[in-house]
């Protein structure tokens, strides 16, 4: 009586059309979460292809695989896609899937709003990509947007960006932004109002805490981006002058508004991974998280400070020196709670009995890479140094260490960790280990050399470079790393697909973990829990498994 318990098999007696219809009209947070993540992964592959084309163009100086405009479209679409259509949906999707399970709820607070948010995101993404076909406009200069993901004015004005591509950029991001905001409202209401009996705020799983702060950041940052985009849209379509220097409009105002969104956005993309790591590291170290309360405080601290660091993206715009100093100070300050987190994870590993299953492997990879990204971040907070390094490949290297070595590694850790919960089957361990080492190698091949070419004076976003400036070798190495990375990602995708039918049956709790989602079958039934669980501490399952040594109450 062992029915294959995979996510697809649950309704195997229905036709394909019926099953697709069930997914399309679902308001179940688990199905929505899975759809978020799958769509995010599809966009991840697309953005990866865009990046690959860029790296091919840059393999030798004065290459002409891509036209200048083609290259500019590639980095615009790559950046926009990775931030809005890969990072956000995968992380929000993971939150969607996990939050109700982790806090012992039957669903999100507003299930229909939840579905609405997902479809907004998806159609926003499709709208952005439709620009390849639809942006031809009246001027015949069509194709995808080519203004960069931060779309600095006045390059985005009608004078310098003809056709409709920039309008597609505005509308696509705005629509998917509305989706993110509805999801954030849902997260807040779910975490604050739907907890199971006994789950006080200080017993919340850390991932839930991080998601709570992320939700607040989404609700503070994205509306400001939307406002700025509305202004830009008015400029482009109604002839307003918000960012029009000819009419005394300011190019700098856009940057203030954009980065007021843009920097919290970085924390929106890194806090959920912090949450994944905070769940995975304790389970595989077999130790409780070190300093739960300080972790919570650091998360909230990061949330607050992240709203006051935006102008460190503008150190070379010519702001007054005192303002630069102020933003340097706040940027230094935010590195402290981030450092606390790293030390707390190390403190958790310290004295543990660490099992290096793939989730933990990716989690340690995250730690190792994120530390580098964090330290180069500190270097970039040093204003005069940023005078040299800003807008150079050093910055590209820096934020890929944060967002790829950090966020993406953590996402893969999370995929390996929760895949058995979602599908009922474990992913292949051996392939996972291979994928990890290949990916780690490929990642460093691609992104470490960028620090050097940046210090040698190579600006970012150039479609080609002059020979003889010392950039050649570093670009060559970067491009060589690309196929290695593709191999690593491909292995993981293959592993995900194959394990769906071939993976070992996972059971409720394959990792011997401690949070509530592991107390229900894998995959969980539609109503999540037959009986709403109760919670005795921050690690309810630990208490059940170790009745003689229950979790200390941290309140």
């Amino acid at each position: 009586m062992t029915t294959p318990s995979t996510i697809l098999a649950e309704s195997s007696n229905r036709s394909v059309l019926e099953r697709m219809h069930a997914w399309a009209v679902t308001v179940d947070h688990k199905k929505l979460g899975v759809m978020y993540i799958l769509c995010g992964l599809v966009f991840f592959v697309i953005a990866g292809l865009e990046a690959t084309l860029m790296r091919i163009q840059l393999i030798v100086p004065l290459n002409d695989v891509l036209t200048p405009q083609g290259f500019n479209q590639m980095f615009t679409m790559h950046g926009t896609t990775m931030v809005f259509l890969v990072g956000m949906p995968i992380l929000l999707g993971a939150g969607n899937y996990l939050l109700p399970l982790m806090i012992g709820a039957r669903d999100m607070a507003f299930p229909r709003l939840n579905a609405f948010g997902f479809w907004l995101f998806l159609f926003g993404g499709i709208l952005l990509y439709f620009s390849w076909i639809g942006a031809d406009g009246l001027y015949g200069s069509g194709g995808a947007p080519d203004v960069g993901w931060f779309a600095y004015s006045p390059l985005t004005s009608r004078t310098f960006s003809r056709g409709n591509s920039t309008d597609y950029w505005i509308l696509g991001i705005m629509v998917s932004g509305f989706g993110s905001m509805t999801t954030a409202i849902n997260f807040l209401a779910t975490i604050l109002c739907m907890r199971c009996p006994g789950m006080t705020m200080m017993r919340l799983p850390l991932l839930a805490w991080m998601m709570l702060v992320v939700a607040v950041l989404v609700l503070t940052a994205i509306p400001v981006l939307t406002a700025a985009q509305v202004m830009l849209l008015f400029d482009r379509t109604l002839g307003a002058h918000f960012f029009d220097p000819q009419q005394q409009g300011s190019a700098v105002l856009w940057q203030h508004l954009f980065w007021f969104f843009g920097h919290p956005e970085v924390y929106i993309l890194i806090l959920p991974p912090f949450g994944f790591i905070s769940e995975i590291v304790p389970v595989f170290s077999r130790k409780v998280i070190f300093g739960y309360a300080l972790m919570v405080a650091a998360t909230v601290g990061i949330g607050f400070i992240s709203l006051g660091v935006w102008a460190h993206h503008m150190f070379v715009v010519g702001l007054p020196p005192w303002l630069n100093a102020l933003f340097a100070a706040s940027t230094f300050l935010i590195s402290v709670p981030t450092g606390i987190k790293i030390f707390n994870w190390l403190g958790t590993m310290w004295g543990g009995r660490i099992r290096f299953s793939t989730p933990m492997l990716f989690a340690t990879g995250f730690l190792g890479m994120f530390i580098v990204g964090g330290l180069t971040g500190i270097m970039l907070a040093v204003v005069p140094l940023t005078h040299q390094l800003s807008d150079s490949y050093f910055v590209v290297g820096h934020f890929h260490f944060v967002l790829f070595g950090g966020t993406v590694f953590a996402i893969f850790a999370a995929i390996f960790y929760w895949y058995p919960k979602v599908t009922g089957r474990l992913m292949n361990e051996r392939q996972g280990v291979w994928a990890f080492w290949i990916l780690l190698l490929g990642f460093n091949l691609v992104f470490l050399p960028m620090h050097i070419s940046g210090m040698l004076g190579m600006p970012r976003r150039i479609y080609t470079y002059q020979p003889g400036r010392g950039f050649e070798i570093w670009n060559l190495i970067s491009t060589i790393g690309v196929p290695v990375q593709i191999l690593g990602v491909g292995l993981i995708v293959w592993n995900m697909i194959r394990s769906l039918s071939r993976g070992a049956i996972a059971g409720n709790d394959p990792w011997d973990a401690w949070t509530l989602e592991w107390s229900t079958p894998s995959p969980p039934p539609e109503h999540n829990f037959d009986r709403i669980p109760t919670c005795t501490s921050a690690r309810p399952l630990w208490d059940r498994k170790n009745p003689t040594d229950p979790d200390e109450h941290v309140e």
Partner: protein
Amino acid sequence: MRSGHGIRWVVFWLLACVILFQCPAVAGEAALCAPGDTASIAPTVVQPSIFHPLSPPARQIESLAWLVMGICAGIFVIVEGLLVFSIVRFRRRSMESGEPVQLYGSNPIELAWTVVPLLIVFTLGLVTIRVIRDVERETPPEGALEVICIGHQWWWEYRYENPLSPQGEIVVANELHVPVGRPVWLRLESADVIHSWWVPSLAGKMDVVPNKTNHVWFVAEEPGLYLGQCAEYCGNQHAGMLLRVNATSPEEFDQWLSHQASKPVDEPAVAAGKSIFLELACSTCHTVAGVSDGAFAPDLTHLMSRATIASGVSPLNRQTLRSWIDDPQNMKPGCNMPSLKLTTDELDDVTAFLCTLK
């Protein structure tokens, strides 16, 4: 197989350390050893690198960079070391069973790793503020040569005040000339979108923002040709917006200046080319002193005194000039100069005319 991870981590970490610490050294070396342009009158070419400073602000930033990198390297070694140590030391061994001791936290330890980083970043903050004061000047240095730099899509315009010239100023394109040893105060303005002026060996970059005036200053310490390029994405040909700064002895600089102030040669032999230049669209955008008065494109009065064309994308000689006029989109795709579809004869005439503009 499990224990293999520890060893792999150690190897990986050592490699990473070696690579990271090699970065700056390699970067500095590369700038020094890079082969120069092989132009006929070859000045020393200073390839861009932040580790090869030849000007006070760049020098100050370099020494700051070493300090900051030193501190970061220290933190890197300690933290990654702790990570690798934990991985190796605390991995589960097969004979162990049961759960390890649960440690929920420790106030003194947590306080320590809050306060120590605070102290480190406080120190860094102080250092930063001190250097900001020196690098970000709000007034020109004493005795500075003041030059206006205007960023265009996708070329640079420089304006020198000069009483010798009839207009009271000299306008040149793309190649900045400065005297060695004298401070230069560049006033940065933009004609269209945001650009950024970045010659790493001279100074940190500064954005060139429309409707806003920024400044950058430097003192070229050695004669040479300093290279850089636009560092803020400005559209199609952002990559083709190269920077060249010629630092020469004050005498040579004065000579250059008075030459630029002089009227262009009026050569009757090229009258045919001149009339084509005037009749076709050329003269609406390009200025040739005394001949035409366009404002959208580089001033051509002393075109042939420059070493490059198309904002440094190609060396300048009769051949490259001819092919540039024939179809600029070929050499610099997406640039704002159209191909005028000249016949071969017209092309030769215009090229001949422009070649007289020495």
